[in-house]
């Protein structure tokens, strides 16, 4: 008899937390998928211009990145606001570009070297003078395949 009485007082049972790990894992996986890994930390402002006649850069291992733009706000005290070039993780001089290209070539397999593409990630407020200097250095290093990396969008947005 007392057995039945006990059950009457129990109320709602506790919600099972057995599935909590699944939910957490799900969230974890989701964020793992959507976050893009940056292999270099940017030290320059890098707002890319818009363009709509674009081609995709398919093979990531064949791309060398050159960044240019004004130094990020936290570096401006030290380096000023003059647009600069960034190679790998550090600011570089224009004259370092050739050396950088040769180093990159060295690290790739020989048969891949002719297919290497240089992606120019340049802030849209940069003056063309700097970009031309970079292009001139690339010509000297015979890295002729270039890609002006852009965001997809109407080109008129650049004029604002």
């Amino acid at each position, binding site marked *: 008899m007392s057995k*039945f*009485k006990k*059950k*009457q007082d*129990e*109320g*709602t*049972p506790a919600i*099972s937390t*057995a*599935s909590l790990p*699944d*939910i957490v*894992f*799900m969230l974890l*996986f*989701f964020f793992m*998928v*959507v976050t*893009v890994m940056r292999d270099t930390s940017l030290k320059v402002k890098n707002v890319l*211009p*818009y*363009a*709509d*006649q*674009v*081609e*995709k*850069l*398919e093979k990531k291992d064949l*791309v060398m990145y050159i960044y240019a733009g004004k130094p990020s706000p936290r570096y401006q005290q030290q380096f000023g606001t003059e647009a600069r070039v960034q190679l790998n993780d550090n600011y570089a001089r224009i004259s370092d570009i050739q050396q950088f290209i040769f180093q990159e070539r060295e690290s790739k397999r020989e048969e891949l070297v002719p297919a290497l*593409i240089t*992606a120019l990630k*340049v*802030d*849209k*407020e*940069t*003056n*063309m*003078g700097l*970009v*031309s200097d970079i*292009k*001139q250095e690339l*010509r*000297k290093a*015979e890295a*002729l*395949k*270039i*890609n*002006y*990396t*852009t965001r*997809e969008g109407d*080109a*008129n947005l*650049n*004029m604002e």
Partner: protein
Amino acid sequence: MAKRGSPEVNAGSMADIAFLLLIFFLVTTTIETDSGISRKLPPLDEETENPPPLKKKNIFIVLVNANEEIFVDHDIIKENPVKLEDLKDKAIEFLDNGGGTGDEACNYCQGTGNPESSDNPIKAVISLQNDRMTEYGTYIAVQNELVAAYNTLRNREAQRLYNMDFTEMEKAFKNPETSDANKEKLKERIGVVKDMFPQKLSEAEPKK
């Protein structure tokens, strides 16, 4: 009868639901790839050779100055800046002009045949000039419009010959799922259209 508490929810299928969602996100999210305008720089040693003589009417000069104003060909003297939206049409008008006669005639051009403008798209060169103080964004916008002009003309010819857009053909050619036989065919067709409107975009070094 005694009142029973609500029965415990079966959580056994929770993992399945989680996996389902996980797989859904895995399939739908694409990892970001960079895209941009691809260009080929001219080799450095070319400057020492004598450049082939070009008729003045076959060169279309696009000048972007430090105030982000765009000037086209004859308008440079008139100080009459062109709007970015009009640049594409102007470039198409120039490339598609087909003003040549005899050997230089262009049998697929649909332009007006103005003798003051280009003879043939094969001979037509667009020369892009900029100032050192020009903003990069403007430069890219101009590049973009010029590439758009070429793409429009190439699409038109590809549609006429093969009933397919040029840009579609290029996309299919790059797609790894396209069969080798198809790729061979596409490569040939892309070559034909490219030869009709070769992209001759010369980038002069900026003026100081």
